[in-house]
């Protein structure tokens, strides 16, 4: 689904990613793991077109997307789910969802039926549809950003730290939902997480970054079983 090949990215004089390569397979959950400063955020921002790579290629399906602008990504079938703080707090819940729908490849009006799909997935959002998104709790915000990304009917979902600041129960709920989405809709997911234990429990495949380099790339279960790796890079 998504192939990253020898990606090197820098911010000013600092090189944040050194020739990173990996593949996120179709219909799977791929977790990108690593400590703070490993380059996860840089990777995500580069994948979604907010930042340009110095060299290397990014391919979505068959299409190279290394020089595609961020605002064109939804139309190519890739939706970036910023962490829960990425809700637009001043807009209502429904307006946030509607906005997500406007990015669909086929365009067109966002109908009530479209919205209903999101509300069926997250009934709590239906109750709060007219509220300002800024009034939502952390868990509800995370649901809103995921629901909003799904409105664009993407093939690939990029998730930025969905567990950040959430209670374990809510994290489990959200990860279970991701599994269902992959199973039911054939969605592919790239999950960038610091919380390695939870992420590996849900992912099919894992990539571990350290100081901007890939230090492990393997099945999720294999990574979770590698004690040395876990202690050195994953902190559990």
């Amino acid at each position, binding site marked *: 689904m998504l192939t990253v090949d020898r990606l090197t990215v820098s911010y000013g004089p600092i090189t944040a990613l050194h020739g990173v390569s990996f593949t996120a397979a179709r219909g799977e959950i791929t977790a990108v793991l690593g400590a703070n400063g490993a380059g996860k955020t840089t990777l995500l921002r580069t994948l*979604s077109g*907010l930042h340009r790579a110095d060299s290397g290629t990014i391919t979505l399906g068959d299409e190279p997307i290394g020089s595609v*602008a*961020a*605002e*064109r*990504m*939804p*139309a190519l079938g890739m939706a*970036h789910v*910023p962490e829960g703080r*990425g*809700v*637009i*707090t*001043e*807009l209502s819940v429904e*307006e946030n969802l*509607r*906005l*997500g729908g*406007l*990015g669909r490849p086929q365009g067109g*009006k*966002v109908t009530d039926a479209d919205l209903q799909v999101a509300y069926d997935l997250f009934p709590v959002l239906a109750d709060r549809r007219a509220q300002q998104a800024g009034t939502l709790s952390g868990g509800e915000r995370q649901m809103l950003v995921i629901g*909003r990304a799904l409105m*664009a009917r993407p093939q690939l979902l990029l998730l930025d730290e969905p567990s950040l600041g959430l209670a374990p129960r809510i994290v489990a709920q959200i990860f279970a939902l991701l599994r269902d989405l992959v199973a039911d809709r054939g969605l592919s997911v790239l999950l960038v997480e610091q919380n390695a234990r939870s992420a590996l429990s849900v992912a099919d495949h894992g990539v571990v970054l350290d100081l901007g380099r890939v230090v492990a790339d393997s099945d999720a279960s294999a990574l979770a079983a590698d004690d040395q790796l876990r202690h050195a890079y994953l902190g559990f």
Partner: protein
Amino acid sequence: MQQLLNTALGGLTLGAVYAAFALALVLIWRSTRVVNFAQAPMAMVTTFIALVVIDAGYSYWLGFAAALVSGLLLGALLERLVVRHVDGKAEINAVILTLGLFIVLHSLAAVVFGNEYRSFPAPFGIRGFEVGDRTIALTGFGVFTLVAVLVVMGLLVLLFRFTDLGLKMRASAFNAEVARLLGVQVGRMKTLGWALASLVGSLAGLLIAGGSLVHPGYMDSIVVYGFVAAVLGGLDSPAGAVVGGLVLGLSLSFVSGYVGSQLVALAALLILMLVLMLKPGGLFSSTTARRV
């Protein structure tokens, strides 16, 4: 009683103009988080363009349209060519930039159109209506002013509340990066915001100029009143800007009528400070915690 009524009516008409100008400021604030102090000379320039068209023998309405269209273009142009480049820089840079534009447009107009007062026509009567045997301070042009401002406000509310374009514009204003990730062409929305604002500002310029004199500096104090009106309304809300404009127009009209016209600007300053100290989110906000 007569004076009271006339002061109120005069204030309402004046307030409508402030409201239009405040609307322009609010639109730009919403789209780019910049208070456009250059709005005054921008409106002045487009009013002069209307005057050139009218003086060339064409109808008032052609001049009117020319001003609005040139306002639209001027706003888009300035955003694309100049304002865009301070995006993401310290907020003081944007303020200084719009003040620089203020000076530039001002002197440019003086060079091109001349520095003297010129009279500007009005399409409707500028004498008060007669009610019974009395003349009240509401003119045909005053009614036109009020209606025009209300219509524009209505259209803007429709745009922002009920259209996808309006939703995208608001999203870009509130959180540009997230809006981009959702596929919104943020740059275009900002340009559009400036263009629309400049159009509304041009309308304000025409409404102030109608039946009066224009000069490169004739809008200068209006930028202050427009700003105060916009802050009264919370700086973020088109409806708030209109109500703020009307409230300010009425208050200042009473100051002018009963205290002295020289102190109008001082009164505006006091009102501004009171609002910022007591209700920084505007008259209609429920919260008081807001950074101003």
